[in-house]
């Protein structure tokens, strides 16, 4: 389980989990669940397009995630993003249907992009995963306070000169980077579970934002490692374990909250 070819899986899985834990915390706090589901799914045709053009799949993922961000931002109206998100998503996926038929890709590769293929990470893929993941984390940490403040209280944020629209766009951009990192490993359909499951449990256990984010990262790492190990032992797809564990974390959070009372918003110092 820890032999040479598995080393990449553990490394990539760990990087992906850290990114998902950090970004996921803000997905939960800012309530951008649909975007966080739609961007990875809409970016997946980018990988098919990249193969069609013969370039690295990360370029395709980044380009399509970028298109998704632009679509959601341009079509969305104030406080109403759901129709814009849905339409952007199906536009990209419609192109995906076309690319898939043009490339005549093996069903196995499509399956891997949708549901994850942690065992197939090559040495060459580790570097872009680390660089893009690092960018997503640095951006999130650099804008930690304004991102949090604009999520918890739009009025307070405006009073401090933080534009809600700018923070929305910034966060969509961060989600885009996180998407390109996580999709090849856990799959376009299940990135969401890794981001949101651990983060939702973490925010139920503490209201202090720093520890909550740390806890979110820790639980995401546990999820990724457990999923890789279980996938290795059973030979079942890694996405199944990620989805199931994500739901388990959320359930744990709900149980804790029921005992303690209401979910409280994070406290901004």
């Amino acid at each position: 389980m820890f032999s040479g070819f598995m080393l990449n899986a553990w490394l990539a899985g760990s990087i992906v989990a850290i990114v998902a834990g950090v970004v996921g915390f803000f997905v939960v706090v800012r309530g951008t669940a649909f975007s966080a589901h739609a961007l990875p799914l809409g970016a997946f045709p980018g990988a098919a397009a990249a193969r069609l053009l013969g370039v690295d799949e990360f370029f395709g993922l980044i380009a399509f995630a970028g298109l998704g961000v632009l679509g959601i931002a341009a079509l969305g109206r104030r406080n109403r993003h759901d129709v814009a998100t849905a339409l952007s998503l199906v536009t990209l996926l419609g192109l995906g249907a076309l690319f898939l038929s043009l490339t005549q890709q093996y069903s196995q590769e499509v399956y891997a992009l949708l549901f994850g293929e942690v065992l197939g990470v090559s040495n060459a893929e580790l570097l872009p995963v680390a660089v893009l993941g690092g960018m997503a984390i640095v951006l999130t940490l650099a804008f930690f306070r304004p991102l949090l403040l604009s999520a918890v209280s739009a009025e307070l944020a405006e009073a401090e000169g933080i534009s809600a629209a700018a923070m929305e766009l910034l966060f969509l951009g961060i989600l885009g980077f996180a998407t390109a990192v996580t999709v090849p490993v856990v799959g376009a359909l299940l990135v969401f579970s890794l981001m949101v499951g651990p983060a939702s449990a973490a925010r139920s256990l503490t209201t202090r934002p720093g520890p909550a984010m740390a806890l979110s990262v820790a639980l995401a790492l546990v999820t990724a490692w457990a999923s890789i190990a279980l996938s290795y032992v059973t030979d079942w797809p890694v996405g199944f374990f990620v989805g199931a564990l994500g739901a388990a974390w959320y359930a744990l959070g709900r149980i804790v909250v029921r005992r303690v009372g209401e979910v409280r918003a994070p406290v901004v110092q």
Partner: protein
Amino acid sequence: MDFLLKSVVAPGFFTSQPVITAMIVGGGAAIVSAIVGVFTVIRGQSFAGHALADVSSAGGSASFLIGVNPLLGFVVMALVAGAGIEVFGVKDVRERDLVTGIITGAGLGLAALLLYFAVRTTSTTGAAITVMFGSMFAISQSVAPLAIAVGFAALLMVGLLFRPLLLTSLDPELAAVAGINVRLVNGLFLMMLALAVSLSAITIGAVLSTALLIGPAATALRLASRPGIVLLLAPFAGLIATFGGILLAYDSYGWGGGHGWPVSFCIVALVLTLYLLASLVSRFGIGLKALDIEA
């Protein structure tokens, strides 16, 4: 005239059994999804609509594995997901979205596992693409009767609950004051949504079904605001996109290049074209103001 018709419709279109089945199932899906979609857009539940379709893919995958009518699989899992959202859902919108996403993730994880078993035990290698992106000309004739039944059930529910459904969609507080059981109507709406998206899922695929649900409804809402007119325009837009898409895909086999364009792509492209046209029309306000009586 005959020449014109032949140059638009490639030979054999109206006599091909796969095309006829695709038009029956696809047309039904377009009508039902568009009508339910109007309420979905007004209620701001696009994510729920997409989520139910995503989870329904687990049912589609299961039917590959055990060999039952694929529509049955989609419908059952979509209903299960709808019940899950209703049972675990909470009032707060952010929290509801979170629950929706978590259920989606769990459902898709299950789909991953079932597809894995399906590929292992049977020789259906294209199962993932069929379930997720649809394969309309491959819909079995035996699906049609069940599809029609599911479509009628959904439309019947919309018809019986029309006024409470509309009122809870437009103004839930007013509906509660008027003595409507909002929680019950919301739950029943999720059932209608489940029936509608499973029809679309078997037509253009689970992840693309959102196009038929949201696209025509958003198009109609751009052009009119009176509920009666919106509910007529939306299915009309859905049917144009679906039948046009089937025709384009069928014709594309004759355009060279070795293979045709996927039907799902053609339908989604037409859905979006109609939406963009409607946005242009409404932006420049070309003579449709007469329809805007009730804002």
